[in-house]
């Protein structure tokens, strides 16, 4: 965190000054480790073993927060008889269909409850629930690859009223399943799989349990070191289980905090740049044959909790986009929304480019030629486009690969053969435009333009608005019904200044929404499903309450309470800690004075406290819902997790995930080691088959023939001095001089084994590519003892490319495309490689070296693709 988020890290330092213990878990000793109380180095890609063992320790030592667990989680819920755990099936859960490489999650459900499948099988459920009779509801493989796990990004799938055993003794209750599932995750497996000595593991156990409970809370902070794996989502689920067992969710000082790759990544999922989501985590409709608004709501919504109001959120969104044209008569223009026909994630888009299906590409502040997994495949894909628009500060590699990329040097591409027309549009910096950032804590902070952008540089808002305006002008006289969604869009933002810059606050006002009189809405609870309200993103409703830009508030912390509610604005409803009903006992009193956040005021008959209560304000703690209740009223006064249809934190996920209801350890796609936990080596539901390509070969793993060709574990990361793929830093002298070139970090032991010299050159090779880097020999990448052998890791900062002021090879060129099935993220944080002294060959000899390695390792197109 100190390394990549130094500004935010000041609060960790402030907490440490007040006595907090900081533990840093990372393969390398970083700037964070330097100021932490304990650094825990581990093998990249083994974190679920560690998390599982911590869960096991908490369960077996009885140190879980029992009152919290019994009342606020689904620990007591009884699971279907049909469920089989990885314990029963040696590493696979029940429902796995090998030919489809996916799970049918029907057996994972709560006993006696209809549960909406989250995967491709959802389509069957869709027909059942909406009365559709058309059995052929689209290609199941297309639909199941289309991110159904994301559909309930913050929701929780449909469940009825589950059976429970509050004694937690029922053999099929979640608590007992959890105990059995994690029994094999022990201090010994941590030592053997992660390379963490038992004493170190013991110290982590001691610290997190001693610092959790009524009077204390522990926070976990993670970044892409956890997410960028073929089991990325399950890493986070592991932390969720641990934190929920310890009672660290919904309470001050607790939580699981995602540090994102750069500013406003949280914002870009809230109002998404993701193909499968609409604003506010409303799922993007699929191309069902018979879908209308009612069917969509019936299929995707829940009948309990706040997702039961999905119609109000969806209709208000449609009203924000199509205004007066959207009426009850035309289903509020629901048919104007595009439909998913399959997965259109970044990496599938690259494959579509290679196949010639994707003809055009916009890159807005993104440099896939350097920043995405398998940079070569990215460049080959872009070389097949008809047109490419690059908006960035400088001529980044993605804008120039056609004339100076590595494949031009190697002869694999020839400039004269590339038909891609590249449009470069200089971009304005954040200091040159108005707008908001939404960062990890869901807080919107407004920023003001300090100067006008220089030359032709313009903001994204300017570009998008004026591009839309010009397209609409061209379509103005079209009679093609296909053009109606564009023609009917509300696209009338006021512009200002010499460049006709759209007024960013006008966009914010639309996102906030208004009622039929055009008055700004105060909160999402005011949204209606009858077309009388419009709102561009329901969770942001209230950010422009009373016509005031609430995100622009800057009251100093010293002049308000410790939560700082008048600094910026946090969604939803300016709530600073989500699910904060859990900060109080079931009877509504705080768990302790020290950790008081919100509580039930019996005299006033409402919830009150330091934060905005995340609960129906007047729902008393003793409230029990009537049998026929729906929506929020269907949740009890002791159900804090109001977005879940059962109001509970899910230790076990009966639906919503594509690769299992509980995290299980699987080895990375390319790993030199066998899976110590199960016979199943890799996540069986990971996505690889769609990415089989001569330039995306997978490597043998698990001691199988050829795996010794790639004996080292490698991981990629960032340095404080540079920013992601370098577009914002490698062109700047003041940053470039601080880290002037690409280097790899190796231990003295690995340097000795391979004859690498400090500051000399090394070539790092995988089945995809070979890159060269200067060598830093350092004890900060310690060797580990894993499964009885010495394991060396290679550290690779991934900022560099061939262009700019500071240049170097790209670490991402080494990485294969293999994806987590839930969110389609690549596995860039753990892979296997070889390293040898000296510079890599140039020209055609570079791919020849990679081919030589492939041959030595016996790699074919089947290698590594088995489930």
């Amino acid at each position, binding site marked *: 965190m100190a390394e990549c988020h*130094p500004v935010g890290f*000041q609060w960790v330092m402030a907490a440490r000054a007040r006595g907090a213990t900081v533990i840093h878990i990372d393969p390398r000793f970083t*700037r964070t480790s*330097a100021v932490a109380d304990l650094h825990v180095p581990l093998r990249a890609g083994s974190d679920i073993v560690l998390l599982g063992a911590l869960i096991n320790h908490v369960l077996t030592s009885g140190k879980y927060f029992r009152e919290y667990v019994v009342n606020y989680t689904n620990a007591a819920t009884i699971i279907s008889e049909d469920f089989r755990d990885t314990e029963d099936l040696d590493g696979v859960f029940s429902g796995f269909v090998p030919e489809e490489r996916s799970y049918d999650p029907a057996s994972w459900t709560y006993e006696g409850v209809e549960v909406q499948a989250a995967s491709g099988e959802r389509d069957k459920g869709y027909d059942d629930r909406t009365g559709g009779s058309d059995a052929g509801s689209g290609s199941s493989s297309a639909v199941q690859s289309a991110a159904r796990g994301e559909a309930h990004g913050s929701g929780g799938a449909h469940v009825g009223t589950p059976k429970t055993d509050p004694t937690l003794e029922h053999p099929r209750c979640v608590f007992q399943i959890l105990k059995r599932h994690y029994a094999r995750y022990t201090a010994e497996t941590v030592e053997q799989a992660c390379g963490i000595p038992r*004493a170190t593991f013991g110290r982590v156990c001691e610290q997190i349990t001693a610092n959790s409970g009524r009077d204390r809370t522990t926070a976990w902070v993670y970044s892409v070191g956890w997410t960028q794996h073929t089991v990325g989502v399950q890493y986070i689920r592991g932390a969720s289980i641990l934190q929920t067992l310890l009672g660290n969710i919904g309470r001050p000082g607790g939580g699981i905090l995602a540090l994102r790759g750069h500013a406003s990544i949280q914002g870009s999922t809230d109002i998404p740049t993701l193909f499968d989501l609409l604003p506010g985590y409303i799922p993007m409709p699929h191309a069902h044959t018979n879908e209308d608004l009612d069917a969509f709501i019936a299929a995707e919504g829940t009948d309990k909790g706040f997702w039961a109001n999905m119609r109000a959120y969806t209709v208000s969104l449609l009203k924000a986009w199509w205004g007066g044209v959207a009426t009850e008569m035309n289903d509020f223009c629901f048919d104007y929304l595009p439909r998913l026909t399959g997965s259109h994630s970044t990496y599938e888009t690259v494959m579509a480019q290679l196949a010639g299906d994707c003809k055009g590409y916009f890159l807005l502040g993104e440099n896939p030629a350097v920043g995405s997994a398998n940079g070569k495949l990215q460049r080959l894909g872009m070389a097949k486009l008809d047109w490419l628009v690059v908006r960035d500060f400088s001529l980044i590699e993605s804008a120039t690969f056609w004339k100076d990329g590595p494949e031009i040097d190697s002869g694999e591409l020839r400039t004269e053969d590339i038909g891609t027309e590249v449009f470069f549009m200089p971009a304005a910096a954040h200091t040159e435009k108005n707008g908001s950032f939404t960062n990890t804590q869901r807080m919107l902070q407004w920023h003001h333009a300090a100067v006008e952008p220089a030359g032709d540089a313009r903001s994204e808002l300017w570009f998008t608005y004026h591009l839309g305006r010009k397209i609409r002008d061209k379509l103005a006289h079209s009679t093609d019904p296909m053009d109606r969604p564009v023609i009917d869009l509300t696209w009338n933002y006021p512009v200002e200044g010499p460049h006709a810059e759209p007024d960013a606050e006008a966009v914010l006002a639309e996102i906030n929404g208004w009622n039929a009189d055009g008055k700004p809405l105060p909160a999402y609870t005011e949204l209606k499903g009858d077309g009388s309200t419009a709102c561009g993103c329901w969770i942001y409703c209230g950010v422009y309450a009373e016509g005031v830009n609430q995100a622009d508030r800057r009251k100093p912390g010293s002049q308000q309470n410790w939560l700082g509610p008048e600094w910026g604005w946090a969604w939803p409803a300016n709530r600073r800690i989500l699910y904060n009903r859990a900060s109080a006992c079931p009877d509504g009193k705080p768990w302790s004075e020290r950790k008081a956040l919100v509580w039930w005021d019996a005299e006033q008959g409402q919830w009150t406290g330091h934060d905005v209560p995340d609960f129906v304000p007047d729902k008393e703690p003793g409230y029990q819902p009537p049998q026929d209740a729906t929506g929020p009223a269907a949740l009890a006064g002791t159900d804090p997790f109001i977005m879940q249809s059962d109001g509970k934190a899910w230790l076990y996920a009966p639906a919503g995930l594509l690769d299992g209801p509980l995290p299980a350890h699987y080895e990375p796609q390319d790993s030199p080691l066998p899976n110590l936990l199960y016979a199943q080596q890799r996540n069986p539901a990971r996505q690889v088959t769609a990415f089989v390509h001569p330039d995306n070969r997978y490597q043998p793993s698990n001691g199988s023939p050829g795996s010794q060709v790639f004996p080292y574990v490698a991981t990629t990361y960032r340095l404080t001095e540079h920013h992601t793929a370098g577009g914002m830093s490698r062109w700047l002298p003041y940053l470039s001089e*601080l880290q*002037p070139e690409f280097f790899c970090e190796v231990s003295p032991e690995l340097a000795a084994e391979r004859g690498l010299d400090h500051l000399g050159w090394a070539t790092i090779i995988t089945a995809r590519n070979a890159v060269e880097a200067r060598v830093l020999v350092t004890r900060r990448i310690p*060797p580990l*003892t894993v499964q009885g052998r010495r394991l060396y890791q290679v550290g690779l900062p991934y900022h560099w490319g061939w262009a700019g002021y500071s240049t170097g090879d790209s670490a991402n060129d080494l990485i294969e495309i293999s994806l987590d099935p839930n969110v389609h993220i690549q596995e860039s944080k753990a892979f296997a490689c070889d390293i040898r002294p000296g510079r890599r060959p140039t020209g055609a000899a570079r791919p020849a070296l990679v081919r030589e390695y492939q041959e030595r390792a016996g790699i074919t197109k089947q290698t590594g693709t088995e489930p």
Partner: protein
Amino acid sequence: MTAIDVQITTGPDGMDSYPGQRPQMGFFTDTSVCIGCKACEVACKEWNHVPEDGLALTGMSYDNSVGLGADTWRHVAFIEQQRPVSVADGDAADGASSASGDSGLRWLMSSDVCKHCTHAACLDVCPTGALMRTEFGTVVVQSDICNGCGYCIPACPYGVIDQRKEDGRAWKCTLCYDRLGAGMEPACAKACPTDSIQFGPLDELRERGAARVDQLHEAGETSARLYGNDPDDGVGGDGAFFLLLDEPEVYGLPPDPVVTTRDLPSMWRHAGAAAVTLAAMAVTSFATETLARRLGGGGGR
């Protein structure tokens, strides 16, 4: 900028000194909370238009700025240390970590800067008056006066001030004289996310530094010590002092810096005395010779 309202006093040896009428302002750099982000280096360069200092991977951990110079006015040192750890009861078979999980690995980071000495030798030797003592007690080179003679460079006991090859003039940290005049803190302190760099009246900072050392000692960090805080040290106390976690030499700092002009007065006195003695000897010798001649004969001839 208003006229300098400080009276520059003269020290006991006639050398430049401080205090003036305003409190002396300075830096306290607490290296125990430095996270090595180098925001200070970049903020300094941005504000003061300090040029880029060359692209060179040094291999000195994450330090590619190497040291203070004409084009680097803040410099973050990175020191990787492997310290012996007590291997108590087992579980440290490979010696990689102790029973407590401590690997013995330590990564020290420290942001260095001009010390703005209370007795500043650079200022003493400057023949043009380009180096001056400001109303804040800081030491600043006026680039429009500096003639590039370079006398200040060997005079600095810390090796801070440096000549820029491109223009021949001497450059160093100004403690953001222009920002101070406008009531702002220096750019580096403003940018520092963890408050490792603190700006303020030196008296206050010294108290804060002493309290921080006590706090660290209580927490078991017994190696914490202040550097440059003592008004009785060889430079009369640094205007920029540090909390270090190891010996100053580890950070590339001289252990016992002395203002290089300290001995100049006595040197001049001695030189003067020697001159007088020489002159006297010459006179004596002449007189003796004359006398001898007068007394008859050519002496020894």
